[in-house]
């Protein structure tokens, strides 16, 4: 065999500057082409399912919300829905609408983040700057509505914890108008910008049959002509009462995945307008029992990355017997090898990014109403004092920095 034909083995990860989260790719190359690929994940496994078994239902809600910094609402909603089913709780309609609102705002910030990452991976950093600038508007809005940019803590078992005022609704509509205008511009770019079209078309192919066989979900599956969306097919929250279409594409490549996410952004704006227009009056939560009667339930949620599955088993105590989570990236990770079959090494970053693997973006300071912009020192002191009032004393915890 000539040298040029010889396989080269390279490892990328688990720690690598180009990876946003720890993942390990072992690649066999023949020249520039990928001959074989092995993906290892699991580096972020934190034992959350086990942890849930020794915490109460409410504590678990906060723990599960922290599975992910981006689709935190997806996890907390999927979980509370399962618990509410077991407990037989009738969640007020107003709460269901507010959950839908936060869910769609989360989808917008997630998809805008993705669009920026995709632009970055193909050297189109202007797109990254634009979309991440726009995303800030949604993050600020979420912070204003819930108190947090991520991990919103809006849910509780039996409803939501914060109501929506008329003024807040009006503000959301104004921001949505602006974002829609911007998104239309990105749609135009995706339709007309030849560099972007050529770089993404035909890359990361996943024919429909393979997407089905490997269990792909979300925009990854919908870009391969699988028009399945939990919001439409297995409706939860307020989706059964709202008008929207499931966006799919037939390109079955990274370009198709871009088209689907852009289409979903436009649908999200429409959904939010409907939620605010039709927001029912009434309470935002019903009282949930501390002990959940024995039973089990399976809940599904259409997270920005696809179907998020939570199974909960209750044993009559205040702690669950078992909580099982299947996040969408685990389902989509099975298709990465197929997407990279016979492709070039240079396609790896964008193909992997195109399933939108999940990563966290939690470390931010925000302006707390009436308290001005806080320095880190002040913010730290504020949180110590706040916890002390709740009976937890952090004063003697040693600082690392």
């Amino acid at each position, binding site marked *: 065999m000539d040298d040029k034909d010889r396989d080269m083995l390279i490892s990328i990860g688990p720690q690598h500057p180009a990876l946003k989260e720890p993942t390990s790719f072992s690649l066999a190359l023949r020249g520039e082409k990928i001959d074989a690929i092995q993906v290892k994940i*699991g580096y972020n*496994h934190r034992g959350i399912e086990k942890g849930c078994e020794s915490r109460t239902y409410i504590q678990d809600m906060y723990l599960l919300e922290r599975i992910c910094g981006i689709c935190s609402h997806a996890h907390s909603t999927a979980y509370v829905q399962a618990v509410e089913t077991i407990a037989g709780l009738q969640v007020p309609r107003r709460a269901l609408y507010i959950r839908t609102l936060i869910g769609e705002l989360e989808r917008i910030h997630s998809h805008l983040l993705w669009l920026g990452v995709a632009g970055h991976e193909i050297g189109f950093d202007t797109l990254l700057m634009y979309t991440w600038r726009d995303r800030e508007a949604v993050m600020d809005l979420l912070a204003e509505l819930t108190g947090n940019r991520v991990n919103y803590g809006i849910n509780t078992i039996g409803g939501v914890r914060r109501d929506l005022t008329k003024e807040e609704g009006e503000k959301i509509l104004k921001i949505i108008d602006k974002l829609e205008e911007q998104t239309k511009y990105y749609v135009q770019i995706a339709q007309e910008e030849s560099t972007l079209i050529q770089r993404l078309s035909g890359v990361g192919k996943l024919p429909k049959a393979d997407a*089905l066989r490997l269990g792909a979900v979300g925009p990854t599956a919908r870009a391969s002509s699988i028009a399945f969306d939990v919001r439409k097919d297995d409706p939860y929250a307020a989706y059964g009462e709202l008008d929207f279409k499931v966006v799919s594409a037939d390109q079955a490549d990274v370009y198709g995945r871009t088209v689907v996410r852009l289409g979903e952004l436009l649908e999200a704006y429409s959904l939010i307008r409907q939620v605010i227009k039709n927001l029912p009056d009434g309470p935002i939560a019903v009282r949930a029992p501390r002990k959940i009667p024995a039973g089990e339930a399976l809940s599904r949620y259409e997270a920005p990355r696809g179907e998020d*599955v939570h199974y909960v088993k209750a044993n009559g105590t205040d702690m669950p017997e078992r909580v*099982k989570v299947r996040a969408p990236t685990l*389902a989509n990770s099975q298709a990465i090898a197929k997407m990279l079959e016979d492709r070039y090494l240079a396609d790896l970053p964008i193909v992997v990014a195109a399933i939108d693997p999940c990563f966290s973006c939690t470390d931010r300071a925000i302006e707390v109403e009436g308290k001005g912009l806080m320095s880190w020192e002040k913010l730290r002191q504020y949180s110590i004092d706040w916890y002390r009032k709740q009976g937890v004393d952090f004063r003697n915890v040693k600082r690392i920095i």
Partner: protein
Amino acid sequence: MSDLTQIKQQLEDKFVYLKGGIREQGERRLWSEVSYDLFFDVFGYAVKELGFDALCTITGLDEGEYLAFIYHLSKGGLVFNLKTKILKDKEDLRTVIDYFPGAAIYEREVVDLLGVKVAGLPDGVRYPLPDDWPAGQYPLRKDWDPKVLDQKEAG
């Protein structure tokens, strides 16, 4: 008759032993349990004849003497949760990758976390525990105590 009730009816007609053992929950969930020697009859029928074309995941449960597994099969918005159980440390599962190749990762997960063996699952990278995880430690078993890890670190 709703789709769900119709599927329940089809299952009961085909497998008499399921009569009275299938539970409808809400509009889109079916729950049932079958002994492991009959599992593949029901599972195969649901996939091949009833159109359950996706496996959401496999949930593993430690039930004392037994390990139980729920295969969450979906057909659009409907989910058929089929449970089965085997004797802990005495019996093995058989792989379902012939039906769903993507299920390999869910099977590796129950192998790592519950310590079940899955016959027919090809060798591959373990998931989700690290390569140097101590042998014989299965975190999702009810008698497993995380203190084992502290001892390892201290040692």
